[in-house]
């Protein structure tokens, strides 16, 4: 019997033949933490260990409070910077961008095992990486020992075929899937994506889908590494990091879900759970006070390109704040070069530095009581954007741009 992507990667990295349900002790190719989980990780590491297994494959990202809004978080940043200086591990300082984006751009290699003290570590699954979020204790141990344990997950195969209609994007696909199977529909399992729609997807789109696999409870969201992956890594100057990886044809799946991409419509998650989905057109008239385009889900150059094309020559609604946060410094630079930033600012946008702050309610873009936001992020839990009295809707960058123009939830096909 053949192997799923999860079984293949974890067998390889544990040097054993493991199957779903087995425990694997696997080598970790990259272990990281960010500024809100890093201090606890470092405290746990220093309580018990003296040295890093591999300083060049250990990273601390300062991205959640970037730049820091208060003295406590600034002091946490000092702790992380000092640890990096002391140990020689990599540091991605304020302004570089969101950990998951930088891991994709510069660090993730197909076939790797990556663990991060951040639940959206699954993002790198878009590049054929077994990547998953863990807590500070697990990451501290992996930093010290270079390995961790996994229960090899059962896999669900998601086969997507057909072409998206105009105005429908990868984000709509993953929101639709989560609505279909629920916020715990893939708990402890790996979602493995296949089909002609997936084969045609750019890496940016694959990262969007992989990023949100955790919102269905999944341990990983995995894509084969193919020619598209090779082209992406080559463009990043990392052609040597490429290796093809795909599941065996006779791999065993606990379930297969078939989705016809051509039937999908722009989809929106309503407060306060991601699986509470509706079609954008069904929510027409819902007043939106703030639109956020960015985050590790949809803050890439392709996302900004869609938003820019829709907002060009238009103005955001006078009673709707339009906030844009490119996911990394590289993306911000590309957006400046392409003229997107000029167009977006002319359309009324507020540009934030690359980072996570607005998405998790840490700073910049905190909602007021009873305010509603349409965000391109991955989570709409109560209190997520800094106020339990706020309401968060999730959608694609196109739905976000359309909504910014009208001030109410809008199907992007009305504006495109």
């Amino acid at each position, binding site marked *: 019997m053949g192997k799923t992507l999860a079984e293949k990667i974890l067998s390889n990295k544990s040097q054993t033949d493991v199957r779903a349900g087995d*425990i694997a*002790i696997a080598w970790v190719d990259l272990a990281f933490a960010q500024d*809100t*989980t890093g*201090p*606890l990780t470092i405290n*746990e590491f220093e*309580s*018990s260990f003296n040295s890093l297994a591999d300083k060049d494959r250990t990273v601390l990202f300062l991205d*959640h*409070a970037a730049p820091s*809004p*208060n003295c*406590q*978080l600034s*002091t*946490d940043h000092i*702790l992380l910077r000092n640890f990096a200086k002391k140990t020689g591990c990599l540091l991605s300082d304020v302004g570089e961008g969101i950990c998951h984006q930088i891991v994709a751009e510069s660090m993730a290699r197909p076939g790797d095992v990556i663990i*991060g*003290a*951040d*639940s959206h*570590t699954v993002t790198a699954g878009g590049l054929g990486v077994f990547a998953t*979020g*863990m*807590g*500070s*204790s*697990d990451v*501290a*141990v992996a930093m010290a*020992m270079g*390995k961790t*344990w996994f*229960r090899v997950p059962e896999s669900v195969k998601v086969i997507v075929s057909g072409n998206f209609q105009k105005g429908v994007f990868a984000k709509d696909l993953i929101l639709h899937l989560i609505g279909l199977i629920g*916020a*715990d529909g893939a*708990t*402890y399992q790996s979602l493995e994506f296949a089909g002609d729609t997936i084969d045609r997807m750019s890496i940016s789109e694959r990262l969007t889908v992989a990023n949100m696999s955790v919102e269905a*409870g999944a*341990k990983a969201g995995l894509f084969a590494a193919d020619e598209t992956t090779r082209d992406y890594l080559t463009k990043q100057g990392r052609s040597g990091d490429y290796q093809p990886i795909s599941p065996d044809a006779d791999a065993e799946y606990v379930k297969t879900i078939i989705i016809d991409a051509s039937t999908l419509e722009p989809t929106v998650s309503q407060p306060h*759970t991601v699986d509470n989905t509706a079609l954008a057109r069904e929510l027409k008239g819902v007043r939106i006070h703030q639109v956020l385009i960015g985050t590790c889900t949809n803050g890439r150059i392709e996302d900004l390109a869609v938003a820019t094309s829709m907002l060009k020559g238009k103005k955001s609604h006078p009673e709707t704040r339009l906030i844009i946060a490119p996911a990394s410094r590289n993306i911000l630079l590309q957006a400046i070069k392409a003229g997107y930033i000029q167009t977006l600012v002319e359309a009324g946008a507020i540009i934030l530095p690359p980072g996570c702050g607005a998405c*998790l*309610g*840490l700073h910049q873009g*905190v909602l007021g009581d009873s305010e509603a936001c349409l965000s391109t992020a991955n*989570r709409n*839990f*109560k*209190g*997520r954007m*800094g*106020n*339990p009295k706020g309401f968060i809707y999730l959608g694609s960058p196109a739905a976000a741009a359309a909504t910014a123009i009208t001030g109410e939830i809008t199907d992007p096909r009305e504006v495109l």
Partner: protein
Amino acid sequence: MLKGKAFKFGDNISTDHIVPGRLAHLRSNLPELAKHVLEDADPTFATRVKAGDFVVGGSNFGLGSSREHAPLVIKMAGVSAILAKSVARIFFRNAINLGLPVLVCDTDKIDDGDTIEVDMEAGTIQDITNGNKVSFKPIPPFMSAILAEGGLIPYIKKYGDFKL
């Protein structure tokens, strides 16, 4: 035998309900952060919970972030175990890594405010107030070994490695 009062919560209690991102500045001041435990689900919980009590959730308890602070502040509140119909993966692993038991069982049989008794050996939970008895799913052996040592760091300190 663990004995205490049940504090019931609904389905999908997220890590943002337990320790929201807006309190990220308190994460290096754990005693202060712990005063806000589960604040966005029940603002009165932190002042009512006593050592030995239980957090009783519905399905998909602890979904969301990987922040280990979520089970950590629940543990700091003195909670002896979390009971839920189902648990999100990262939260489950984090709680066990901190030595905090998470027991998967039919929590519909337990009422808010009831006194309950957990027999970790027998795998049963007795609701003394309403008379219901439920059994919980055994914790997988590998995690059980970590829990037995009081968490992952003490486990690694003791064995020096993962023991299959």
